[in-house]
């Protein structure tokens, strides 16, 4: 599905990611973990294409996408929920959702029910501006917007960060249900060890821009946590 090979990337002259390789198989949930500032967001941005890789390659669906622009990657079926949600503040909730269809092949039928049904609170807010929503509501909107194009790969960058517990639970349930349907692979950046253990198939741990530990989720135990994640 997605395979990142020996990626090096960063901002301007400074290099953040060094020789990163990872793989996401179809239908899998792969978690990317690590302390703050180790390059998790940089990696998702590099996969999405908003940061250009300096070397290495990104293969998606047997196609080399390393040189493609972000919008071309989105059209190939990569959905993205960025850190900080990035809702279009001046646009209505409905318009935000419709923009999620831009990458989709069939736009005529509107936003698919499968994207909205998971977030029952959204339809009641269609006419409100995206910027007037609370953080948790915005997060749900960003999630639904990413699902609108029925992506084959979802990049979720800390979807539960800074959100009230009940909505965190809702979002975790949504991730579980997507996994159960099995037709969307997920690369999830997540801090909650408990949730990762319950949902992931595979994990990678980043430290100083390099992958220091990886394995299937049953090898993810307390010693790994203590060594790489405890502050």
């Amino acid at each position, binding site marked *: 599905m997605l395979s990142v090979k020996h990626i090096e990337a960063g901002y301007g002259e400074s290099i953040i990611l060094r020789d990163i390789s990872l793989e996401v198989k179809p239908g899998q949930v792969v978690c990317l973990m690590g302390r703050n500032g180790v390059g998790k967001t940089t990696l998702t941005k590099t996969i*999405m*294409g*908003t940061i250009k890789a300096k070397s290495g390659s990104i293969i998606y669906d047997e196609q080399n996408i390393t040189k493609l*622009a*972000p*919008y071309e990657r*989105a*059209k190939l079926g990569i959905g*993205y929920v*960025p850190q900080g949600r*990035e*809702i*279009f*503040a*001046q*646009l209505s909730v409905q*318009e935000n959702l*419709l*923009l*999620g269809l*831009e*990458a*989709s092949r069939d*736009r005529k039928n509107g936003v698919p029910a499968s994207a909205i049904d998971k977030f029952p609170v959204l339809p009641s807010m269609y006419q409100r*501006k995206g*910027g*007037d*929503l609370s953080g948790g509501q915005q997060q749900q909107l960003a999630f639904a*917007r990413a699902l609108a*194009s029925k992506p084959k790969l979802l990049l979720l960058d800390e979807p539960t960060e800074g959100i009230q517990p009940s909505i965190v639970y809702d979002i975790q349930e949504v991730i579980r249900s997507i996994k159960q349907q099995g037709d969307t692979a997920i690369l999830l950046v997540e801090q909650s060890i408990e949730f990762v253990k319950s949902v992931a198939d595979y994990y990678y741990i980043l430290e100083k821009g390099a992958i220091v530990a990886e394995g299937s989720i049953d090898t993810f135990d307390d010693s790994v946590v203590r060594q790489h994640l405890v502050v």
Partner: protein
Amino acid sequence: MEVQLLQLFNGISVSSILLLIALGLAITFGLMNVINMAHGEFIMIGAYSTYVTQLFFTSNIPADYFGYYFVLAILVSFAVAFIFGFVLEISLIRFLYGRPLDSLLATWGVGLVLQQLARSIFGAPNVAVQAPAWLNGGLEVMDGIILPYKRLFIIALVAVVLLAMYLFIYRSNAGRRMRAVMQNREMAACLGISTRRVDSMTFAIGSGIAGIAGCAITLLGSIGPSLGTYYIVDAFMVVVLGGVGKLIGSVFGALGIGVTGTFFEYWTNASIGKVLVFIVIIAFLQWKPKGLVTMRTRSLD
């Protein structure tokens, strides 16, 4: 009483012209934040397109149909200015996003080049565009008050352009893409929108609307290569006073400047009236630096 009414009509008429020349700028400057000093030259291009359309009609089309040329001229003006804008965007403007001072200088240079181009093609002296017969004369609403058809036509034209722009920007898919890109370029790209294409289309549309303004201006008098320079300051004033980024702001901005300007000029004289308008605008912007209509929303963090 009649005089006051006539002044009000004059004010609205001036506002409609101000608004028409500012609408294109409301897109290129208001939405895209490009300080386009060549905006006036796009108006000039529209005016000369109308002139050429008229020449074409007088030499190729039977005189009976001459009256219709103006309708076609509006479309031609839009198309020609649109193409010029499109070319300017892909050849120059796209390298200057986020660099206001550079784009100010570069577009000013482009403006001078375009003026010289017009001078080379059409000659330095002004040329007159003959208005179609159905726009001559006026509507007599009461004793001594005649509203010229040309002025009424421009007001109607502005209303139509404004409505079309509103529908395009706020109701169409392309308009939604446009607003998304202007608000959050990176996220729009991540959703599958080609920001390059949206940028060039948006700039071209803004330029095309300037072309329509140029077409309308041919009704007011003769046109020359430096026509645009008379209007560029007014256009920026309307957009800045109205509030950058909102279409409705430009409407209020134009009405404010047009109506108060006309009354100031009536009470004093033409030059003092202009000075008073400037003073009021400066004072107002001290009080509300963001203009008449500002965007309000819960701040995003």
